[in-house]
Every structure is written in C-alpha cells, then in structure tokens.
C-alpha cells in the first residue's frame, strides 16, 4: 500500500467568547498548506478538546482563546493530555495573550504563542518545522 501520511491538527475554540472568525481563518490557511484540520467549533471544554485530540489522533492542537481565560484553560488541557499519556501532542495558543502569560504558558509546555495579528504564513511555517513536515 502506498504511504500517504497527512499531518492532522485539531483547531479548537475553548471558553465562552463567541468569535471564531480567527480560528476559521487559521483552519483554512492550514488546509491550504496541506494539513488535515479537525475543526471542533465553539465553547469547547478542556475535556472535550483532549478527547477529540485522542480520538482523531492529531499531531498538534491549536487553541484559539480571546476570552482571557487562557491561564486556566491551557494548563488544564496540558494536564489532561498528560493524564492520558498523550503529551506527545503539542499545543499552540493563539489569541490575546499578554507577554508574561505567554512566557508562563511556554514554561508549562506550550510550544507556540501567537498574537491576533500573526500572519497565517508564519503559523504554517512554525507548525511545519515543529512537526518536522518534509516538503
């Protein structure tokens, strides 16, 4: 059988804010870069995100958070991944994240933190190198 590997990324929107325009733009950019994007929609709990990541066997999770709840949500996601022996799935956070929070999240294990204005090309490049995608 011919090998046909695609990298899979879960794009999730935890928390209560109702804007997913940014997340959708990112999802489309990732699709156009050849990724399989599992888009799970708004208002996801940390538990739902990790369960979806496991069932979909994704290579990466991208969280879009605008509500300001990142310091509770993101560590929860990381903790649940660890509980499920799934810490090999790395996490990137996008949204309005103050710099010191970003640093703290990185210390906790998040591999990338991106502000709202980040060009999607930069995101794509970051993910490709983080996942070791060969072109």
């Amino acid at each position, binding site marked *: *059988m*011919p*090998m*046909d*590997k*695609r990298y*899979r990324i879960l794009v999730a929107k935890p928390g209560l804010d109702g804007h997913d325009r940014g997340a959708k733009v990112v*999802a*489309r950019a*990732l*699709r*156009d*870069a*050849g*990724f*399989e*994007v*599992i*888009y*799970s*929609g708004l*208002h*996801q709990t940390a*538990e*739902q995100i990790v*369960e*979806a990541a*496991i*069932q*979909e*066997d994704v290579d990466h999770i991208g969280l879009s958070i605008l509500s300001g709840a990142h310091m509770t949500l993101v560590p929860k996601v990381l903790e649940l991944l660890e509980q*499920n*022996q*799934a810490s090999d799935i790395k996490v990137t956070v996008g949204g309005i994240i103050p710099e010191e929070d970003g640093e703290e999240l990185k210390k906790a294990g998040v591999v990338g933190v991106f502000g709202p204005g980040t060009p999607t090309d930069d995101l794509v490049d970051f993910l490709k190198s983080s996942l070791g995608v060969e072109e």
Partner: protein
Amino acid sequence: MEDAIGELIERLFKGDRRALARAISIVEDGAPGSSRIMSSIYGKCGGAHIIGFTGPPGAGKSTIVDRVARHLRKMDKTIGIVAVDPTSPFSGGAILGDRIRMHEIAMDPAIFIRSMGTRGHLGGLARATGDVIRLMDAFGKDYVLVETVGAGQSEVDIVESAHTTVIVEMPGLGDDIQAIKAGILEIGDLFVVNKADREGIDKTVAELGTMLDLREWKDKEWKPPIIPAVAKEDKGVAEAVEVIRQHMEYLTQSGKLDVIVTKRLVEDYHELTRDLLWEQVLKGSKATEVKRLEDEVRSKKKDPYSAAEELVKSFDQ
C-alpha cells in the same frame, strides 16, 4: 525484540481507545504495519450494524448522525462514527468539521468519533473508510454510523460498506428533485427528508414518493420508507431508528445479510490479492518493464490497454 504493532493490536483488543485511534491513522496513512493490523482484526469483524448516511451538503447528515447515536445510546448500544469530508484537490489538506454537530455525545465513553478526509478518492468515501469501519467493528462497537461526503450524486460507494443506507434530503433544493434521482433512489433503504420545519416539505416528500412508486415493488421486498424529520429538534429520529432496526431484521430474515457478508468477503479477497500482486510486480523481476511501459504511456507512444497487455504477456516469457 520490540513489537510496537503487536502491542498496539493487543491494546486495541483490550478496548484501549488510544490504540484504536492510532491503528486508524496507520491504516489510513498506509503506514508500515497496516496490513498486519487489518489481518489480525479481520476475524473479529461482523458484529456491527453498519449504517451509511448520505445526501447533499447541509441537509443535516451530521445532525442526524448525532441524534441517531443518542437514541441508540438509550438502548445501551455502543457506537463508532466515521465522518468523511472532502480533501482539497489543490493542497491535499482538508477541514473536517462534522464534530461541530456532535458535542453532546463526544464525551460519552461508549462513542468513538473519527473524521476523515477523502484524500483524493472519489465516490463519497476515503480509500481507507472500509478499513476504519472494520476497525471499529472489531473494537466491539454495536453500530458504526458513516457520514459520507455530500457531493450530490456520486457517493454510491457507501452501499458497498453499509448494511443500511440512509439518504438525507431536505426541501427547497430548487425544483431539483431530478438530481436526487440519479443513482440515489436505487441505493436508499430509508429516506429522511430533514428540515421539515421548512416550507416545501410536503412537496419534497410527495415527489420522492412518486419517484419510488415508478418502480415495481415485489411482495416482501423492502420498500424504502420516507420519513420527514426535524433533526435539530429530534423529531422523526426515533422513527428513523426504528426503521433502521427493522431493515436489519429484514436483511437477516430474508437471508440477504448472509449474501451481502459473503459477497464482501470475496470482494475483499479479490481486492487485496490485486493489491498484493501488484506490489509483488513492482518489487519483482519485471520492475524495469513496468517502468519502461509506464514511460511509453506517459509519452503517449502506447495506450494504457496495449501497455497493460504487453506487461502481462511478458510474464509468460
């Protein structure tokens, strides 16, 4: 010696959902170990009732799958869901968004949901969808619900994989009921006309009925029922689930189930043999001949038929 695939298969049989998720990826990617996984699980297949859901984009397939799953859970059944979305032909990437409609059931440990891109395969399913269904079947799911790509008329692949095919339609697709006719009428075991809260529902149901009546139905033959539904509000879903159950009863009692199952086993055997033989050819002594003829086809010096014939003849020499 470390045997990662063997270990994975063992975990799969113990009911470890991470192992199922990983096994699906390996098989989907055609990665090393995929043949071994499939041959080890084959013997455990056959317990699941496989139900396909097809129909145009936006008709409500994902919503219905979600609702059907909830009804089946009330009967204490375990469920696997495979949702297929189109892969972009330009980038090879895809946005798989069917989970959006399945939040309520996503945390139920008896339900496992997997999204797939078509990865260039036509016909409404991905190449590996059949194997993913088998994996969920072997994992012990009572039901496997398969949502196909809603491309319109070409998603007939599902009948090859499902026991029961549900066609999801909705009113107001223009007066385009003709479009439904092509291929779809023959493959439906049940028609759900969703969005019955919208105008035009009676007309769509009636037209569908007329078209089904154009055929002659033999005594005791399964005539597909038409059920109006408002999936969003769970209306009509219990009826659909009951019809699905009756359809399985019909398949069992009429002996059709045995016929389908046997036919599929033989087809799988043929298909796998073809794949393996071709792999052997590519690795074997005629590999250069394969390449030479391929080049001639590419440069249009030979047509594909002559090239194939010449290749096969070369084995006699």
